[in-house]
C-alpha cells in the first residue's frame, strides 16, 4: 500500500514535468522560426528529457498499478475468508432465512465490487485528486488568470459527482436485491423441475421469471442513466474549459502576455486531466456499487456468530450422557410457540423416542440439544452442565446426529464418512460403514471407498444416503446420539437392516430417536408423544398401550388394515359403536 502511494507520487511528479517540456519544445520551435535558426541541440535535449521522464513515469506507474491491484486483491482475499468463516458459524436460524443463492451473490458480486473500489477508489482516487490539485497549482502559477479559467470546471464536476454518487448508490442497492430475487426464482425452478413438470406449469414459471428479469433490466437502465449523464456532463465541462483556454489564452498570446509555447503547455496540462476526468465517472460508479455492496456484506458480517450468542466455555470430558430438559420452551418466531414446557430426562444409555404429528415439535427438541437453536425458557443439561455453558465444539463433539436431509460433500465416499473425524483409520471407516449396512454396497462399486460423490450424491440411493449419514455419526463414537426420521424413506427390508445396525450403535449411548414407524420406536426406554409442542403421553411401549391413549391409537393405525380403521372412524362419525376405541381425537 505504502509502495503504491510512493510510486504514485513519483509517477505523478514525472508526469507533471512532461507538459512543461512539450511546451518548451514548442517555444524552441517558435523561437527558431523567429530567429530563423534551428537549435538541434536544444531540441534533442528536450526530447531526451521527455524520454527519460517517460521511462521513469512508466516504470513508476507500473508499480503504482500493480501495487494498487495487489492491495485490492489482498482485501478481497481477506474479505472472502472472513465471510466464509462467518457464514459457517452463523446459527441455523440465520440459514433458515437466507437462500444459498442470496449468500453466494454477496460472497461473489459484492466482494468483487468492494475489490474494484479498493483499486479504483482507494488507490486511484487520491491519485486523481492529487493530479487535479497539482495541475491546478501549476496552471495558476504559470498564469493565474488563465489558470483560473482552466480550473473553473472542477467545482462543477465535484458537485455533480457528489450528487450522482448518492443517487447511484441507492440505485445499485435496489439492483442487487432484485438480482438476488431473480436468482431465487431460478434456483427454485431448477430444483423443483419435477414439480413444475408434474403440473405442466412451465408457462406460469416463464412469466414469473420474465417479470422479475424485466424489473432487473429496467432498474439497471435506470442506474446506468445516472452514470451516463454524470460522465457525459463531466466530459462536457472539461471541454468547455479547454475552449475557454484556447479563446482566453489565445487573446493573451495575441496581446503578447504569453508565448504560444506557454499556451501549448496549458493545453497539454489540460490533456493530462482528460484521463482522470473520464475515469471520475467510473470511480463514482464503483464507489456507489461498493457502498451498497458493503452494506449488504456487513449486514451479514455484523450478525453474531453462534459462539458469541452464548459464552459457553466448559469442555466436556468423560460424558456419561445424562441429558435433561427442564421446563424448556421455544419458538422460532416470537409469538408462535413451538415447544411448551418440555421436561425430559434421559439416563445414560437410555433410548428416548419422540413421536407426534408434523409440527408437533419433535425436530425442535433435538435441535435444541446441540444448540442449533436456543431455548427461550428453561434449561437443558448434559451430566448436569447447562449446554449454554459448554463450548460449542465440545458439545457437538459429544452428540452424533443423523439428520433428515443428508448432505454429501464433493469428495469420495470415504471422505464423506470421515467428515467429522479426519484422522480415522481405514479400519474404523470400514467398521462404521459395516454398522450402517453400507460396506457391501460400497465394495461392489468399482472404486470402492474412493468412489466420488457430489452434492446430489447420485451414486447412492435415498436409503443409502441416509446410511451414509449413519456411518458418519457412528464413526464419531459419540456418547449421545440423535436419529432424526432416519428410516422413513426406505422399504421394510432396508429399514430392518438399518434397525439392526442402529441397535448395535445405540448400545451404551443415550439416544434420541424420531421415527414415524413404531417398529423403530417401540423398544425405547421412554416414548414421548408430542402434540402441538406439548407432551401428551409418556412411558414405555407397554405402559402406553395399556393407557389406551394416543399411542395406542397410532399403534393400531399402523398395525390394522387401513380400511378397517376407516370404517371404524366412519362409525365414529356417525356416533355408533366405537371399535378401535381412540380413533377419534
Amino acid at each position, binding site marked *: 500500500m505504502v509502495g503504491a502511494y510512493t510510486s504514485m507520487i513519483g509517477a505523478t511528479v514525472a508526469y507533471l514535468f512532461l507538459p512543461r517540456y512539450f511546451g518548451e519544445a*514548442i517555444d*524552441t*520551435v*517558435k523561437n527558431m522560426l523567429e530567429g530563423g535558426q534551428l537549435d538541434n541541440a536544444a531540441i534533442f535535449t528536450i526530447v531526451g528529457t521527455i*524520454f527519460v521522464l*517517460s521511462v521513469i513515469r512508466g516504470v513508476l506507474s507500473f508499480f503504482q498499478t500493480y501495487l494498487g*491491484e495487489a492491495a485490492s486483491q489482498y482485501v478481497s*482475499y481477506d474479505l472472502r*475468508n472472513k465471510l*466464509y468463516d462467518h457464514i*459457517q*458459524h452463523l446459527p*441455523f436460524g440465520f440459514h*433458515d432465512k437466507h437462500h444459498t*443463492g442470496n*449468500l453466494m451473490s454477496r*460472497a*461473489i458480486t459484492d466482494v*468483487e465490487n468492494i475489490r474494484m473500489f479498493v483499486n479504483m477508489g482507494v488507490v486511484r482516487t487520491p491519485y486523481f485528486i492529487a493530479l487535479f490539485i497539482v495541475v491546478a497549482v501549476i496552471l495558476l502559477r504559470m498564469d493565474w488568470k488563465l489558470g483560473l479559467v482552466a480550473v473553473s470546471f472542477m467545482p462543477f464536476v465535484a458537485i455533480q459527482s457528489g450528487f450522482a454518487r448518492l443517487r447511484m448508490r441507492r440505485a445499485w442497492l435496489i439492483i442487487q436485491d432484485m438480482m438476488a430475487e431473480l*436468482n431465487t426464482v431460478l434456483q*427454485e*425452478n*431448477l*430444483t423443483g423441475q*419435477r*414439480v413444475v413438470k408434474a403440473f405442466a406449469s*412451465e408457462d*406460469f*414459471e416463464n412469466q414469473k421469471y420474465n417479470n422479475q*428479469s*424485466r424489473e432487473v433490466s429496467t432498474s439497471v437502465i435506470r442506474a446506468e442513466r445516472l452514470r*451516463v*449523464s454524470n460522465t457525459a456532463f463531466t466530459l462536457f465541462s472539461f*471541454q468547455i474549459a479547454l*475552449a475557454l483556454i484556447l*479563446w482566453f489564452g*489565445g487573446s493573451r498570446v*495575441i496581446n503578447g502576455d504569453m508565448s504560444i509555447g506557454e*499556451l501549448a503547455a496549458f493545453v*497539454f496540462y489540460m490533456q493530462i486531466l*482528460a484521463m482522470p476526468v473520464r475515469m471520475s465517472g467510473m470511480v463514482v460508479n464503483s464507489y456507489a456499487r461498493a457502498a451498497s455492496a458493503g452494506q449488504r456484506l456487513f449486514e451479514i458480517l455484523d450478525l453474531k456468530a453462534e459462539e458469541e450468542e452464548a459464552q459457553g466455555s466448559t469442555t466436556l470430558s468423560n460424558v456419561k450422557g445424562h441429558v435433561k430438559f427442564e421446563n424448556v420452551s421455544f419458538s422460532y418466531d416470537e409469538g*408462535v410457540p413451538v415447544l411448551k414446557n418440555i421436561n425430559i430426562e434421559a439416563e445414560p444409555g437410555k433410548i428416548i423416542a419422540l413421536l407426534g*404429528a*408434523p409440527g408437533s415439535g419433535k425436530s425442535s427438541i433435538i435441535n435444541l440439544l*446441540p444448540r442449533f437453536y436456543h431455548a427461550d425458557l428453561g434449561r437443558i443439561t448434559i451430566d448436569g452442565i447447562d449446554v449454554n455453558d459448554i463450548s460449542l465444539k465440545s458439545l457437538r463433539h459429544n452428540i452424533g*446426529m443423523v439428520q*433428515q436431509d443428508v448432505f454429501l460433500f464433493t469428495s469420495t465416499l470415504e471422505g464423506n464418512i470421515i467428515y467429522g473425524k479426519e484422522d480415522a483409520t481405514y479400519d474404523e471407516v470400514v467398521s462404521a460403514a459395516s454398522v450402517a449396512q453400507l460396506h457391501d454396497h460400497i465394495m461392489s462399486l468399482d472404486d470402492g471407498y474412493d468412489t466420488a460423490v457430489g*452434492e446430489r450424491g447420485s*451414486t*447412492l*440411493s435415498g436409503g443409502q444416503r441416509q446410511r451414509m449419514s449413519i456411518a458418519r455419526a457412528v464413526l464419531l463414537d459419540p456418547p449421545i446420539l440423535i436419529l432424526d426420521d432416519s428410516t422413513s424413506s426406505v422399504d421394510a*427390508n432396508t429399514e430392518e437392516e438399518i434397525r439392526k445396525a442402529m441397535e448395535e450403535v445405540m448400545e451404551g449411548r443415550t439416544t434420541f430417536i424420531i421415527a*414415524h414407524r413404531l417398529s423403530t420406536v*417401540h423398544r425405547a426406554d421412554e416414548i414421548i408423544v408430542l402434540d402441538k409442542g406439548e407432551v401428551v403421553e409418556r412411558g414405555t411401549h407397554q405402559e402406553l398401550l395399556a393407557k389406551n391413549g394416543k399411542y395406542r391409537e397410532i399403534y393400531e393405525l*399402523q398395525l*390394522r*388394515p*387401513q380400511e*378397517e380403521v*376407516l370404517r371404524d372412524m366412519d362409525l365414529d362419525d356417525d356416533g355408533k359403536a366405537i371399535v378401535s376405541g381412540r380413533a377419534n381425537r
Partner: protein
Amino acid sequence: MHGSAFQGVSRGQVDEVTFGRVYDRQVILRLLPYVFPYKRLALIATVAMLVYTVSQVSIPYMIKLGIDQFIDVGDFSGLTVLFGVFIAVACTNWVANYTQQLYMEKVGQGVLYDLRRTLFAHLQKLSLSYYDKTEVGRIMSRVQGDVWQLQEFMNVVIMTLADLLSLAGIIIMLLIMDLKLGLITMAVLPLLILIMAVWQPFAVKAFLRVRRAISIVNGALNENITGVRVVQAMNRQNRNLQQFDEKNSEHLFSNLVASKLSSGLIPVVDILTAVAIGLAIIFGSRMVSLSQLEVGVLVAFIMYVQRFFDPIRNLTMQYTQLQRSMASGARIFELLDVEPDLVDTENATDLPRLTGAVELRDLSFSYAAASKEVQTMARETGEERNGTNGHGDGNELPDVLKNLNLEIKAGETVAIVGPTGAGKTTLVSLISRFYDVPRGRGSILVDGTDIRDVTRGSLAGQMSMVLQEPFLFSGTVRDNIKYNKLDATQEQMEEAAKAVGAHDFIMSMEEGYDTYLAERGVNLSLGQRQLISFARAIVADPRILILDEATANIDSYTEMLIQRALQKLLVGRTAIVIAHRLSTIRGADKIVVLNLGEIMEVGTHEELMNSEGLYAHLYHMNYASIEAPEPATANGASSRD
C-alpha cells in the same frame, strides 16, 4: 465487475478451450440475432457514437486551427468565432456521448433480457433426464453468471468500439494534417504489435489460471453454505476454513501474477508514447524550420499522439473481459444447444377430459434408452438392489422395467409395491411422461390414446403427483396451494387444505394462508410441507392422482386422516399409489407387486395373501419388526382379524 456468479462446480475440459479465446466468431454470430430486434436503438447508438468520435477527434484540430489561423496572426475575432464553434462541438459531444452510452445500454439490457428469457424457457423444455445428470449449481452459473458476464461484455464492446473508432479517427487526422510526419510518428506501431504478440500467450495463461481459481473458490463456498448444517453438527469449521484458505490463496496468487502481467504493459505504452512524441518533435521541428509545417500542427500532433495510446491501453485492459465473455457466451450457447429430448410430436393432439383409464402394453424401459448419460439416475432409483444381485454393473444398463402389461380401469385405485429398486418410481415417472418411452419398447395409453401422441401439457394438466420429498416454492401458502390452478377460489383452496388436515396448522400461523414460506418452507416441518403439497395436488382436480410414497414423512395419525380424505376425493378418479407401509394400501382395488422391473403379482390384498408370494412376504415383514420382539402385544393386533 467480476460477476462470475455461481461458476460453482462447472469445470470441464471444454472450458479450457473456450476460456482462452478473445474472439470467437461462433459466439458473435449467434449473439447477433439477439441484437436484431433492437436494431433501431442500435442504429441510434451507432450514429451517436460516430458523432461523438468525430467531435472528440476534432478538438485537437480546432486547437491547431486556433493557433495557426488566428492566434499566430493575431486575429481575435476569428478566434472568437472558433470559440463559438468549439462550444457548439462540445455541446454536440455532450449529447452524442449521453445518447451513445444510454442507447447502447438499452440495447445491451434488451439483449440480456431476451437471452435470459430464452434460456429460462429452454430450461423448462428440457426433460428430467437432463436434470438428473446436471447439477443445479452448474445451470445457475450459466444463467446468472454467464449472462452477467455478457452484460460486462456489452460494456466492453461499447468501449472497445469507441476506442477503435477514435483510434481510426486519430490515424486519419494525423495522416491528413501531415502524411509524412504522420507516418513517422506511427513508426512505433509495429513495435507495439510485436510486443503485444509476445505478451499475449502469457496473459492468456495467467488469466485462465485466475478464472479456474475463482471457480474453485466459488464452488467451495457454495458447497459449504449448502451443507452448513452438517458442517456445524460435525464441528468442521476450522478444518474447512483451512481448506478454503488454500483455494483462496491460490486465487490471490494467480491474480497477482496476472496483474503483474497486465501492469507490465503500462511502461511499454508510456515509453512508446514518449518515442512517438520525440519523433514528432524532432522531425516536426525540422519540418517547421523548412516551412513545411505549421507550429499548431505540431501541438495537435503531440495531443493526438497522447490520445492515440489511450485506446490501445484500454484495449489491453479490456482483454481479460473479452476472454471471459467469449467463454461465457460459448457456455450459454452450449446450453441452448441441448436438444429437448421430450418434445410433442408434430401432430400431437390435446387430450380431452379423461375418464382415467391407464394401460401399459409390453412396456420396457432403461435410462440408457432415454438418454445415454442418465446412468446416474438409473443407479439412483433402480440399481441398488440389482447391484447386490449381480445384475447391472453400471456399464451395461439393464432394463429398469421389463415388458410390463397392466390395465388400470378408470376410477380404480392401484397400489404399486415392491422392494427398493423395483422400478416403482420409474413406472410412475413414465406415466407422467417425465421421460419418453422409445417407440418399439411398448407403450402407455390413457383412455386408449398413446401418451406420446398427445401434448404433454394436456396430459400433465389432468394428473397430479405428490412426491416423497415435498417441494414448495418461496411464496405464501396460498401461492403454493394454488400453484397449478391459479383461478382456484378461496373455498376450493380451504376445502383442499381441510381435506388433508392442513387447514388447522395453516390457520394457527400468524398470517394464515398469507404466511410467507421462506426458502421453500424451511420454517415448516417436513410433514407440514407434505400436507401443503397434498392440498396443491387436490386443488388441481386431477383425473389421475399419483402418490409416490407421499406419506412416508407423515405420522400415522395424519396419514390416516389423509387416507380418509382420499377415500372421498378419489371417487371417480384414478389413483396410483406407491407405498412401503403396506397397511395403507390394503384397500386398493388392485395391488401390483414389482420386483427387479417385472410384475410378479397382481391382485387384491386377499388374493395376494393367499397366494403367499412376495407380497405376503413383504407384508409379514412389515409387522414382524414389531411383533417379533414383543409377542405380548398380541392384544393390539388381535383386532386385525
